[in-house]
């Protein structure tokens, strides 16, 4: 039982990442009708916002320590971050340690800027083009973005730990009446889950309760009619693109303490998030979120030793298998609308 609770937690956590990426993808599908293969790259850029902020905080000057030696036997150069001098070592250390949460603030304007320039500079010319062209151009963009990151940050994963206050893990075992130590869950993963829930809730509330959101939802359902009403839907769609980029970016920022970011993390998530979106059903935001959590939980269960020993290899293919089964039993995924991306 405790094993199952743990796997549900794991699944929800994985699902959070899937759902956040899929949410943005669906917004872009639904509003702009664009297949965005660069969405994984946006997630990756978000993660590297956190890395960059950390790097900025640790920009240092060098002093020579004549006593200690470096690996070549020369006097050791000691690096001291400038912020230590500016804010004192205590605040400086705290800033570096808290750089991931601080990167949320840092990344929002950057991701919005990236989203706006992507949509205005490139995507808007592809609204009327075939999906194949959209795939080619966004895939090309994704490669370019990740190669740029690779050029500056290298190919290795870069550790970006969570603040020390949030690195431990919580013991739910006693709370729920199990043995102590049987249900342990890292604080940061709980933070991630809560964060994801808040973002998802925020996006839904925004779309439901603001005029802006209502217009966009109407536009998703029937672009022409809304356009006929004299509403400038294009401008709103641009903002939606920036919002989607921002959601992906934030998902990336918060993900960095869970797994050290590297330049191809976006591609790793891209295919899965496409599967999530399609399983959820094209054009359905609720479907994307539901499918994200569903596939996350199923993936976690499939990796349990008992299940793998019963069906070897099931942990490798579970997501795809579930996708096939769902698409064959429900033609438009969980909650898809008719006629979206079906031709």
């Amino acid at each position, binding site marked *: 039982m*405790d*094993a199952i609770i*743990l*796997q549900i937690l*794991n*699944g929800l*956590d*994985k699902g959070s*990442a899937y759902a956040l990426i899929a949410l943005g993808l669906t917004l872009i599908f639904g509003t702009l009708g664009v297949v965005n293969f660069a969405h994984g790259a946006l997630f990756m850029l978000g993660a590297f916002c956190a890395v960059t902020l950390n790097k900025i905080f640790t920009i240092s000057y060098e002093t020579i320590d004549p006593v*200690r030696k*470096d*690996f*070549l036997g020369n006097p*050791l150069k000691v690096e001291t971050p400038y912020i230590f001098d500016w804010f004192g070592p205590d605040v400086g250390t705290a800033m570096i340690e808290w750089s991931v949460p601080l990167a949320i603030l840092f990344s929002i304007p950057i991701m919005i800027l990236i989203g706006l320039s992507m949509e205005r500079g490139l995507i808007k010319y592809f609204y009327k083009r075939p999906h194949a062209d959209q795939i080619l151009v966004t895939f090309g963009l994704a490669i370019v973005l990740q190669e740029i990151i*690779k050029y500056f940050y*290298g*190919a*290795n*994963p*870069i*550790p970006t*730990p969570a603040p020390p206050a949030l*690195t*431990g*893990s919580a013991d739910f075992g006693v709370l729920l009446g199990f043995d102590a*130590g*049987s*249900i*342990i*869950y*890292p604080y*940061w*993963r709980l933070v991630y889950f809560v964060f994801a829930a808040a973002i998802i809730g925020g996006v839904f509330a925004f779309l439901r309760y603001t005029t802006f959101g209502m217009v966009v939802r109407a536009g998703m359902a029937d672009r022409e009619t809304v356009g006929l009403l004299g509403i400038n839907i294009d401008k709103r769609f641009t903002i939606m693109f920036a919002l989607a980029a921002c959601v992906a970016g934030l998902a990336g920022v918060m993900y960095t303490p*869970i*797994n*050290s970011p*590297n330049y*191809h*993390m976006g591609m*790793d998530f891209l295919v899965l998030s496409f599967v999530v979106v399609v399983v959820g059903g094209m054009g359905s935001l609720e479907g994307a979120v539901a499918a994200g959590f569903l596939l996350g939980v199923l*993936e*976690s*269960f499939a*990796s*349990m*030793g008992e299940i*793998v020993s019963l069906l070897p290899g099931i*942990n*490798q293919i579970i997501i795809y298998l579930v996708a096939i089964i769902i698409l064959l039993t429900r033609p438009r995924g969980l909650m898809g609308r008719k006629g979206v991306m079906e031709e």
Partner: protein
Amino acid sequence: MAKFNPGFSRRGLLKASAVAGVGLAAPTIFSSKSYAYMNEPKGGTVTLGFNVPQSGPYADEGADELRAYELAVEHLNGGGDGGMMNTFSSKALKGNGILGKKVEYVTGDTQTKSDAARASAKSMIEKDGAIMITGGSSSGVAVAVQGLCQEAGVIFMAGLTHSNDTTGKDKKANGFRHFFNSYMSGAALAPVLGKAYGTDRKAYHLTADYNWGYTTEEAVRSSTEAMGWETVGAVKTPLAQTDFSSYITPVLQSDADVLVLNHYGGNMVNSLTNAVQFGLRDRVANGKNFEIVVPLYSRLMAKGAGANVKGIFGSTNWHWSLTDEGSKAFVKSFGTKYGFPPSQAAHTCYVQALLYADAVERAGSFNPCAVVEALEGFEFDGMGNGPTLYRADDHQCFKDVLVVKGKENPTSEFDLLEIVEVTPVAQVTYAPDHPQVAGGSLGKCNPGS
């Protein structure tokens, strides 16, 4: 950046004929049979092929390998401070190239995919006339390229490849490995683990679901079980896995008190990070402190895991903090040129390049079969791992293996591992027909054409 003279020889012979034949319109037809051996260098230069990952997750490791190769070429051609050529026990190399021919090189991208690696190696052999291929950062690639070199008739000097199979069931006459392997990791680690954690432990293995993972798990299991550990669980994890939480949590439910992560590269970084996140380091199981073991360590990858590696045992082929003369010479010339210490991948690649050049000098010929003969059973020293033997039976180097531990107080971003023990070679040597490496045969050396 070192500069070399222009000109890429395709095949020595053809280059010579091209130079002589300018203005001659008469076509000359060669059949592939007209060479003594594949890509025989006939001009004043010889071309080596450096096939390393330049894209994909191991690109940084590949870049470090390439740095080492460039350094080796510089030293072979008489440039720089000579590096390990000065400490190498064999004195055949004179710093005038190989057999008096200037060393040139071509590079390619393996992408860490067997297909791409083979395509890249083929292009070096067919287009650039490379006489030897070396490099790589995974066993799948090493085995695939080794097979290709055997068929094409050139020598393959493996880069970083740790699976038993490279010199086990997939060994080839034209292929040689300096790097250590899974068996050696297991054999070197077990006693150290026994000393540090006791012989009454329950181990849980997470294993990357591919060839290298299997052989590593097998090696570590059999050597730890031999000293009394019990293996309570072994789960295979998909290669593409990035979040290992769902594989870590079952460990909490098991009665294991040691977790062995048979992962490498990005897998290792992520699984170790996740394991630490779930508090395994602070856990007490069966009245003992819970421990994590990473059988194959790489400093580059350890960097990706950050503080999580502290205090975690693993094994490695070589580390820059070694203080023998060879290591010191290598670290000095690499560090002076590039500004940071070399990785174990760089070390093995540098050594492989030198060993090849030395073998050619001693054999007096580039003919692969002569080189094979010169390398088989070759004993040498001064290359950073103590006295070493290139065993004739399987073309595997036998040398000391390092057991290392993540350092508690690193002084720099390179100073992540500390050497716990240098396991003597006798302890990691195995019979060529040991069950973990049995099967396959070297076959006969193939000089091509």
